[in-house]
């Protein structure tokens, strides 16, 4: 599966579809993309993780960036996140501020 992402803005919500892996090959580019929305009044960042198979350290950094650096302390949501990735969020200490949604 290709390691791609797609970002769409819906009002103050950013919807991000993740495919394959979120690692060094694509995480810096996603962070750069997110950076465009810094201080733009984003209230929620929703990651669709239905097709996400793996997240590396650099991917974790993207989630932290979304929470802490976009401005306004947006809500972070993960849709259809698999158990292993949820476990990684837990053990690296960021699970507390993620809402996990099943669709």
């Amino acid at each position, binding site marked *: 599966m290709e390691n791609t992402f797609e970002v769409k803005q819906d009002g103050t919500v950013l919807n991000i579809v993740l495919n394959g892996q979120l*690692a*060094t*090959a694509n995480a810096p580019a996603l962070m750069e993309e997110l950076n465009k929305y810094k201080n733009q009044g984003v209230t929620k960042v929703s990651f669709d993780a239905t097709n996400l198979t*793996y997240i*590396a*350290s*650099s991917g*974790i*950094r993207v989630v*932290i960036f979304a929470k*802490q650096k976009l401005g306004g302390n947006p809500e972070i949501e993960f849709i259809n996140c698999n158990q292993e990735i949820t*476990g*990684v969020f*837990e*053990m*690296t*200490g*960021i699970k507390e501020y993620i809402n996990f949604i099943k669709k």
Partner: protein
Amino acid sequence: MQRVDLFPTHEYGGYKLRAGRPYPFGATVVGNAVNFSIYSRYATDCTLVLFHNHDKTPFLEIPFFKEFRLGNVFSMMVFDLDYENIEYGYRMDGPFAPRQGHRFDKTKILMDPYAKLIAGRDVWGKEPDWINNYQYRSRVVFDDFDWENDLPLETPVNDLVIYEMHVRNFTCGDKAGVKHPGTFAGIAEKIPYLKELGVNCIELMPIHEFDEFENSRPAPDGHTLYNAWGYSNVGFFAPKAAYASTGKYSMQVDELKNLIKKLHAEGIEVILDVVFNHTAEGNENGPYISYRGIDNKTYYMLTQDGYYFNFSGCGNTLNCNNPNVRDMIVDSLRYWVTDYHVDGFRFDLAAILGRDQNGYPMANPPLLESLAHDPILGKTKLIAEAWDAGGLYQVGSFPSWGRWAEWNGKFRDAVRRFVKGDEHVLDDVKERITGSADLYASANRGIKASVNFVTAHDGFTMMDLVSYDGKHNEANGEGNRDGDDNNNSWNCGWEGESTDIGTNFLRHKQIKNFISILMTSQGIPMVLSGDEIGNTQFGNNNAYCQDNEISWLDWKNLEKNADIFNYFQKIIKFRRQHKALRYEYHLGHSDWRNLGMPDFSWHGVKAWQPWNTYNNLTQAFMLNGRYADSDGKPDDFIYVAMNMHWEMHGFELPQLPDGLKWHVFANTAMAAPQDIVEPGYEILIDNQWEVLVEARSIMILVGK
């Protein structure tokens, strides 16, 4: 604006390169490049070897161009590497001349001594692929972590209650009740337990990357013996991958940092047990992992014939006072403090760190002095195990510059002997209880230099100390020859587990006696993980190779030995509430402030008469809380009566100033729950003149 020194100048194998930055050593992400830098004094050539994760064969080997070497450092930037998905190593060329100390072999692929992430042993106990010629594989870390406001806690050292633990043993056992047993995440799940117990510092047995399969072998009963404790480093900068539940995703760095951040949030410090005295490469017959092939003569202490000195008992000795090795050790410690927010270090066999390059002890070892004065480590706890396997014993004389504390092995030995009823140790015990002034009163060291303990990972657990006269190490497969024979233990009348109510009551009482002395003594108390629930290793006093029920804490004991846990919890709380028990410097044993009574006084069965009576097994002491005022509020008086004699004796109480009365806090002779009360709720005693202390018992009174 782009830096002008971040553009490639060379190309090799499809990758763009340029001369790297010699500092820092290791692999560092710089912009869209990785800077590889490695030191070798005697290498003639160096090649960077790159693998895709887990691959047996490299996808590229890049020789360092001549212009990429500065002095004795090879450094190179490689651009556009997918650094999370590669592993790297080095081939070093140079002389193979063992008698001159050189063992270069360019057929070997070598781990970076500065590797901050090491792959190859990612899941505990998973048999490695031994055919693979690169076993311990350096990886690149992008060192950022969201620490928020966290910093090392800088708890005053005299306020610490240290809890020594092993990452796996703590949560692998039955009923541990965690989702991620044997891992950093498992410890994080147990933070509420640590808070309930009341400790404010955990000391982790080695967590640097090591190989649990080193010297792995079948035990007599067929189970596998491992290098379970990990006192044998592969690398000094990387956490043990298999101690992280996320190790299989190479996220051990994040998992450990998250644990430390969570512990700090609950006021619990983290001390790492570090092993800088030797490496896992062993002696002349050992494997090439890193140091031997990168610069054998620099990294190891060698005899004139090029053999390895063995002051560690593990085959080799790191050449700690070579200036370059010294730098590596300092770099490692600084890294753990700056990037992991670690609060302190306990140095295994630290006496070796004070030996010169020929193995002779130095008066002012430069490494120890550097660490004592290092700016980044300026508030970091430094604790020495002040002896080594070469016979150098420096308890009380470890070069300290007023900064180093020591594991006080003399406290352990004296208190063990006293509690078992040895009549020749009272004078020694009195020194230990008062902070070992004979060892630490000089050189501005003070009480804060003494880490007091009765048990540690080496030796019996506290339950075994009162259950076994001798060691029972048969499961280690060495015919019970390994492990210390000098345990100063007493089985209370029966060797091993017992169903006899009287024997078990005595054992529990002896445990409470030990912890009572430990927590009311001056110095930094250290508790061995599991002692608070009466953990047994079934008489094994050297369980370094046991990754099974022998070593794992059996959490069923929390219920079975609830009285022991309750006693530990309350007496730890008592210590933390009473400043009189936590002085930084030694007491005068006099009334130097004219407060009516001395700051500290010894007593016998008669008040103010500390004469040796009843086989030197009765003694009491009193702390005058008025010397321990904080914020203008004096502490209480504390009186501890110790009767290690086998008969009951009355202890005449010293009379308190007007308005104060003696109250009972603890009496180890009583069955739970009458053995101890909640600190602050001590019970007023009717007879203010004398207490009767049962045989082999301790009473703790509070004057308020």
